[in-house]
């Protein structure tokens, strides 16, 4: 049996590229941001060539993040639209925390993945808007009382997004064996797809097979 008999192609190259450019720019921003925020982590700016260089890299990485954030929105907003059965999934915590008899059959993404996507969009927009403000504001024309709220919101949105990213990384790798290949080669096993996205699998692959 060749790989194509047991595996299905679930993530195309466009999705994978957008995911990884978004992820890399985001994690690089987190790294440089932490390096700028904590004086005790001066090793990060030191390795990157100093604080001024780190500021520039944080900004330009943020610009890449902003572009990919907009791309992500257009790429995944439909697949991440909430539906009625998502509430049931959330109330059962997706079966991750306590034993659950049956979960509502998922289409392409489960309610947790959808929540992560919308959390990324909302906090990402806050981070990008406040970040652009911090980069470009002119103190001669903007009251600093307003400006300092932007700096606070930038840091506040990161708390939420950074924690959620860690959940995303765990559930995409060790927490769900067989998942990570969906974002690397684009392929997952048929069994994985039937387990995690049964409705989508049925619609996309079984109908094709019957026809």
């Amino acid at each position, binding site marked *: 049996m060749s790989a194509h008999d047991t595996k299905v192609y679930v993530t195309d190259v466009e999705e994978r590229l957008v995911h990884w450019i978004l992820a890399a720019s985001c994690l690089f921003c987190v790294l440089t941001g932490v390096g700028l925020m904590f004086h005790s982590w001066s090793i990060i700016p030191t390795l990157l060539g100093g604080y001024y260089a780190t500021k520039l890299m944080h900004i330009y990485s943020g610009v890449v993040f902003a572009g990919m954030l907009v791309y992500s929105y257009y790429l995944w907003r439909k697949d991440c639209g909430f539906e009625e059965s998502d509430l049931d999934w959330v109330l059962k915590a997706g*079966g991750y925390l306590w034993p659950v008899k049956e*979960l509502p*059959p998922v289409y392409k993404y489960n309610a947790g993945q959808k929540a992560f996507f919308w959390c990324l969009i909302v906090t990402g927009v806050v981070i990008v808007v406040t970040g652009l403000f911090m980069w470009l504001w002119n103190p001669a024309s903007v009251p600093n009382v307003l*400006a*300092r709220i932007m700096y606070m919101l930038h*840091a506040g949105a990161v*708390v939420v997004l950074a924690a959620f990213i860690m959940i995303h990384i765990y559930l995409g790798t060790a927490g769900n064996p067989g998942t990570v290949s969906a974002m690397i080669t684009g392929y997952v096993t048929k069994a994985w797809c039937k387990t995690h996205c049964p409705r989508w699998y049925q619609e996309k692959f079984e109908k094709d097979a019957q026809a």
Partner: protein
Amino acid sequence: MAEYIKLIDVTKCTGCRGCQVACKQWNSLPAEKTIFSGSLQNPKDLTYNTWTLIRYDEVVKDGKLHWVMRHDACMHCDWPACAKACPSPGALVKTPEGAVVHNPQYCIGCKACIAACPFDIPRNNPELEKMAKCTLCYDRITEGKQPACVTACPTGCLTFGLKEDMLEKAHKRAEAVGGTIYPSNPKYETHVMYILPAGVSPKDLQHTNPNPSMPLSVLLWKNLFKPFTLIGMGAVIGGAFLHYLIKGPHEVHETKEGGE
């Protein structure tokens, strides 16, 4: 190390601008071209190259005119919001003398200090990407000299000395002229203090902060969100390890159809 205070007795200021000029001279700051704006206010505001200026206010209260000239510069906060906000170590430092000093060598031009300052003092140079403000003439006071503005003041409006002496002097003078001391928040001390004339409150004057404090947004940013960036990520990573150990990974069902 002894702490110092610069005391500004507004009742004695004649608006001669000697302090403005002395500051420019000592700190090698170039003069700026200004335009007449219809009042004695000139230059209009602090800039990257103007670290102190006289603010002119005409306050009418109870039918009485108060013509107030106020030397305005960095207040040298005891708990400086600018230094708290600054990401680059050494760029903004509170010294043992009480002066808050900027070092352009380390400044990365992020403007965080400008946003954080409760008195709106730091100014930015967009070309150089550096901030600048009054240093309380740290390079003079550590040599036993007075700040340049104080040495230039002809009326005794500006005085500089040990914290205890200046506090005592301020209270005596305020009582003698029936005026008030600004700022007067005991929880937010500054190393610059004013004696305002009788009948004039900080609210009547331009570019003052009647209730100065560490801004709440800076506290939330630096004391809550900053640590919780790492605490949040760390807690999730720890939780993920526990989840993996206790509940285990979510394996794919090989035979069962649907179900999730």
